[in-house]
């Protein structure tokens, strides 16, 4: 790629100091951030706000695990416990997991990967952050002024008729936040269709972009159904109208249908971008083109489509017809195929690769293992007869935490380490990062693996007390959660540290392929001085390439990339 080389050699020249004309330093003041239309700055706004929500959701998790240390209700009453697990789920799902990778890394990277100056609709992009914040602040208001106790799923008729907590405010908060998601998806979809650089054909796109395309499709087709469902819930609760009320002949299971029509595909909104991150990182640190590029690209689209046909597996024991259950069970098995295709292809990418275990790669390998466990236990739950036993037990909790934390958060951590040099122009301290990656992996497994056993033994979820014989495994789980919590705090410290004292990063510290690595770190406000022309496929790593660590031999790295 000729333009790539000229751009990168120009940028490499100033790798010894952070460039002064970057998107970070070109304007100062709080206003220049709050009114920015630059996709990179908006990504930073999202990063900061979502980190806050992550630690808030984490605080609820800590309280839950502390309560479950003993079989009795020592720390809080049942009502308080109900509120804590509801708020943990609500904050983590709607204000961290759903927007996490798309709103931060998708926002930052899509225009860079596509060779564009910005997303198609910069104003809508900023608007989506404001909508997100309004929804988030309303949710905080609901939490502070009494909390929500319905579970993050808001099942009727409890939520519409009986709950005495701030269901209305929380519902409005989610309704509003949904529009932020819709705007993000709309922006990404149009950007990927219309803003690709010359020569960047569909099958030259990085798989991160394919994953975000599939994610955007789900955001657009699913989110509005959640919006109207919550609206109907609000009308029923607030104005006495009837939509799901069994007293009127309404069917509460219809609420579950509509809710899961969105919320199951929403799981793929979370995991698909994570899979995109893994494809980027694994090819870079194996120095190989991703194995089966087309299969990974199409499996993302297959997940987006098939993901809409499986929602009924959440309703197996709700009173849904057994025939519908059979169809949904079968389709849930089918959607495992494209996920498995990805895992096999990543494994094949590692085969005979020149692997180096930098921090992003450690998280990547963690992702593959944990996501596989999460995915396979999902097949247990998709089996009708097994689900009758496991439904609403800790097995389910363990399963989706393996996918959500073991999958999405691991990929999020991989992404933030991988692109931190590009975003900030500084390297993070590698040894501390590797240490915390290992702490997180150990802490995670210690927290959630015992929950598989607890669930199999029959411990139900959403109770603050449990029989004495479950205590040993619960102590393990709480101990693991403490380790996990420390694991998440360490990166907070060294990332902030690196903003001032981190080693300045070159434009391409990992010698990775992709347009985002051809421009300065951090990039200039308009990304590209001139729009690049793409002449090669993604991940065109030379077959005999050796990885040179950006930390050990930075000068050597600079020279080798000129060859």
């Amino acid at each position, binding site marked *: 790629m000729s333009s790539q080389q000229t751009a990168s050699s120009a940028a490499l020249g100033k790798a010894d100091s952070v460039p002064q004309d970057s998107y970070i330093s070109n304007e100062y003041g709080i206003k220049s951030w709050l009114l920015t239309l630059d996709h990179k700055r908006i990504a930073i706004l999202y990063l900061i706000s979502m980190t806050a929500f992550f630690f808030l959701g984490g605080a609820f998790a800590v309280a839950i695990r502390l309560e479950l240390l003993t079989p009795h209700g020592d720390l809080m009453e049942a009502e308080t416990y109900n509120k804590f697990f509801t708020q943990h789920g609500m904050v983590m799902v709607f204000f961290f997991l759903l927007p996490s990778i798309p709103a931060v890394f998708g926002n930052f990277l899509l225009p860079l990967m596509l060779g564009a100056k910005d*997303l*198609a609709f*910069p104003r809508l992009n900023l608007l989506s952050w404001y909508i997100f914040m309004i929804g988030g602040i309303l949710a905080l208001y609901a939490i502070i002024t009494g909390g929500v106790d319905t579970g993050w799923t808001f099942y009727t008729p409890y939520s519409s008729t009986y709950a005495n907590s701030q269901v209305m405010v929380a519902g409005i908060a989610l309704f509003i936040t949904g529009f932020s998601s*819709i705007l993000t998806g709309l922006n990404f979809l149009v950007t990927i269709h219309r*803003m690709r650089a010359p020569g960047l054909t569909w099958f030259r796109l990085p798989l991160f972009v394919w994953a975000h395309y599939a994610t955007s499709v789900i955001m657009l087709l699913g989110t509005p159904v959640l919006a109207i469902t919550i609206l109907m819930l609000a009308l029923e609760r607030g104005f006495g109208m*009837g*939509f799901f009320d069994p007293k009127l002949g309404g069917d509460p299971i*219809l609420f579950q249908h509509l809710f899961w029509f969105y919320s199951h595909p929403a799981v793929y909104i979370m995991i698909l971008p994570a899979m995109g991150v893994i494809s980027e990182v694994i090819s870079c640190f194996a120095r190989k083109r991703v194995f089966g590029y087309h299969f990974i690209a199409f499996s993302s689209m297959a997940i987006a489509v098939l993901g809409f046909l499986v929602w009924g597996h959440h309703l197996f024991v709700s009173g849904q017809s057994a025939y519908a259950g059979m169809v949904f069970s079968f389709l849930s098995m089918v959607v495992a195929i494209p996920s498995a295709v990805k895992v096999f292809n990543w494994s094949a990418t590692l085969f005979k690769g020149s692997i180096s275990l930098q921090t992003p790669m450690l998280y990547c390998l963690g992702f593959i293992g944990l996501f596989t466990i999460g995915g396979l236990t999902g097949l247990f739950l998709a089996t009708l007869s097994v689900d009758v036993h496991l439904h609403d037990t800790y097995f389910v909790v363990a399963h989706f935490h393996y996918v959500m934390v073991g999958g999405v958060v691991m990929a999020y951590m991989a992404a933030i380490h991988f692109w931190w040099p590009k975003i900030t122009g500084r390297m993070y301290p590698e040894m501390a990062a590797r240490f915390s990656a290992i702490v997180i992996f150990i802490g995670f497994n210690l927290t959630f693996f015992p929950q598989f056993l607890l669930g199999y033994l029959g411990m139900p979820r959403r109770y603050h007390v449990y029989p004495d014989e479950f205590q040993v495994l619960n102590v393990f789980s709480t101990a693991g959660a403490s380790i996990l919590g420390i694991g998440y705090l360490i990166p907070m410290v060294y990332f902030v540290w690196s903003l001032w004292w981190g080693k300045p990063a070159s434009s391409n510290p990992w010698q990775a392929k992709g347009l985002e690595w051809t421009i300065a770190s951090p990039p200039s406000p308009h990304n590209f001085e001139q729009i690049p022309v793409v002449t090669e496929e993604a991940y065109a790593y030379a077959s005999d390439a050796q990885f040179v660590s950006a930390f050990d031999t930075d000068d050597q790295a600079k020279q080798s990339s000129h060859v």
Partner: protein
Amino acid sequence: MSELTSNPGLAHHFEDLEQQHESMTLGMWAFLITEVMFFGGLFTLYAIYRWQYPDAFSESSNKLSVLQGAGNTVVLIGSSLTMALSIWRAQHGDMRGTVRYLVATLLLGSVFLVVKGFEYSHKFHDHLVPGAHFDVSQFLMPETQAHGALFFSLYFAMTGMHALHMVIGMVALLILIKRVRRGRYSAENYSALELMGLYWHFVDIVWIFLFPLLYLIGRTWTPA
């Protein structure tokens, strides 16, 4: 393309007006898909409850005025015509004609909402609004009265959401008329008008389905 890139209507991150126009219309289509799914939730409930409780739905539907519903359908289709014609004038560079047709669209939209307002106030008067004063004992058997509440809840949610979209569309129309008069658009650059048109026609289509589903069911229905 150099003379185009200096166009004041072109945002900095687009290469040319063509790319900008295509991005904007694609964005609007994507938005309309979300709108389909938004109304889709209501249509799902409608389909299922009507299938379960056909008699209550038929009897309740007979309380709506076919005349007002049909009249509003004609008004809304007329407003779609004037909306399309405003773009047709813009394509010819006749921006005065565009303004005239946009104003006509706005007026027809107002007529629709006024009629809707009369319908709503009648329903309030007749205790047909779900809630504390809801009373359908005049025309429904005791065992099906509850199902009548489902019909009228859906009626108000569906037409209310539709009317809300009309109001949003009319605010957008007002802004657009102001901008056309200020000379922001031309025969070369009228993407905003096209977006407005797509949105307005979509709202029309929603009503095209609401009208037969809400107003026209069970007109030949007789109690068993």
